[in-house]
């Protein structure tokens, strides 16, 4: 087993543990909006470490490009997905926890109607 291989396994196990903690966050965090952070923990750092581990295990130029690409895509899509779900939650009036300090979004102005947005 080479050093890289050991590093790879370490990376992966670390990633898996981060991931698990993020998932546990789904249970422990107080409200939907907070739980989204648990999702991000798993989806960003957790997944990233796992992909990194994979790259360390199979280091090659081709794999570097591919895994780099995969990581970039993963992060970008996870973020957009998180945003989409957060927004969906807010639109459907998912109650924030009572300890929420304030909500600037409530009653916020939607701005000038943009093209393609119909009559809203």
């Amino acid at each position, binding site marked *: 087993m080479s050093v890289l291989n050991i590093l790879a396994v370490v990376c992966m196990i670390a990633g898996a543990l981060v991931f698990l903690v993020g998932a546990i966050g789904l249970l422990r965090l107080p409200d939907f909006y*907070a739980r989204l*952070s648990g999702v991000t923990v798993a989806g*960003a750092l957790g997944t*990233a470490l796992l992909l990194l581990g994979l790259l360390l295990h199979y280091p090659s130029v081709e794999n570097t490009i591919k895994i780099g690409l995969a990581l970039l895509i993963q992060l970008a899509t996870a973020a957009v997905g998180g*945003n989409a779900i957060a927004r969906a939650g807010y639109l459907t009036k998912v109650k924030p926890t009572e300890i929420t300090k*304030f909500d*600037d979004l409530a009653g916020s102005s939607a701005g000038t109607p943009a093209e393609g947005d119909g009559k809203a």
Partner: protein
Amino acid sequence: MTYLTWALRLLWFPFYAGGEIVKTTFQVMWDIVTPGSSATPAFVEVPIRATGDLEVTMLANLISLTPGTVTVAVRRDPSTLWVHGLYVEDRESFQKEIHAMEDRILAVTRPKGAPEGAKSKGGRS
């Protein structure tokens, strides 16, 4: 000269973003694994200077990628994000953190770097 520093900023950005992600991840993880919660959540309106689709998207995504914050809504004109923060001490300090991120992003998306006086433009003065 500008382009050289831009290239450097560009190369450094992933490390900056990675660092932010790691930092905030550990903050949230700590909160998860320890009993109780130190959360002080709030929805914060954050006026931003980023204008192009790419800039807005990068900023919003970076916010979403760092655990503890998530972009909930976007407005293009005037450019504004509404962000849910898990650890919000007060509105201004939170906006400042976001603007710090925005600076890093504008420094990458604009060869000339982020414009000075970030807070003066869109802040709730």
